[in-house]
């Protein structure tokens, strides 16, 4: 990998029940993620995706760029912005910003319909 290289795009569409499966898997049952009625009552457009689910997609895109080995991802730092929604495609893109001593640094973004849900994501891979 060289500075300026783009990593392969990762695209996935979380289905309507994904937040329920992620809640069970992660243990985060906050009703804003799994109860549409509650979410709309507190002013959200719908039940929203877990931020850490979005971060897991960013982690996957970065690890995939290093051949998918879970040991390759050494650091990931993100800011959560906007809101991720079920049943809309997520697109994760990234670019290499630094390469030194076998460590690659990447800047990554996760978007949904042009709305950034995760930004300033900086990853470090060990190759």
């Amino acid at each position, binding site marked *: 990998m060289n500075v300026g290289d783009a990593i392969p795009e990762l695209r996935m569409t979380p289905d309507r029940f994904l937040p329920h499966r992620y809640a069970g898997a992660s243990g985060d049952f906050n009703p804003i993620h799994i109860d549409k009625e509650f979410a709309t009552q507190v002013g959200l457009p719908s039940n929203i995706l877990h931020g850490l689910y979005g971060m897991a*997609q960013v982690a996957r895109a970065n*690890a995939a760029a290093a051949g998918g080995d879970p040991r390759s991802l050494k650091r990931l730092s993100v800011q*959560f912005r906007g809101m991720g929604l079920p049943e809309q495609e997520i697109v994760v893109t990234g670019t290499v910003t630094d390469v030194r001593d076998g460590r690659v640094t990447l800047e990554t973004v996760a978007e949904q319909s042009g709305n950034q849900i995760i930004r300033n994501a900086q990853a470090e891979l060990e190759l």
Partner: protein
Amino acid sequence: MPVDTSAKGKKYPPFEYEVGKEKIREYAHAVGEDNPVYFDRGAAKSAGLRDIPAPPMFAVVYSAGAMGPAILDPEVGINFALMVHGGQEFVWGEPVCSGDTITTVAECKDIYERDGKGFYVFESISTNQEGQEVVRATWTNIVRGV
């Protein structure tokens, strides 16, 4: 009202989590992982892993029991109605595999106010049964309109 920073530096009791193959499978499916190393012990061993590895972001699963009491601590005093998860960092060390026992210790690292928002920063450090660090995490929660 200014934010109360008195809980800064407070540490919480260690939380122990035993990592299992089926929980890894459940988590890996939920986040869309398709690498066979997460589902098949043979594939994991062929890849040079001790056992089925946890995906890196599985850190949220074994850290949750340590982070819950810290974030919910009334002494920290987060107003949950106005809280958003602002940022997150993980720095990974030794890989986590099925069969490991992970101990996580959380600390309220910083509380400060900026632009009318309260920032609550927590750090958690997770180690395995050999005492090797597996992850060091920084959790930033932001409370609007303090």
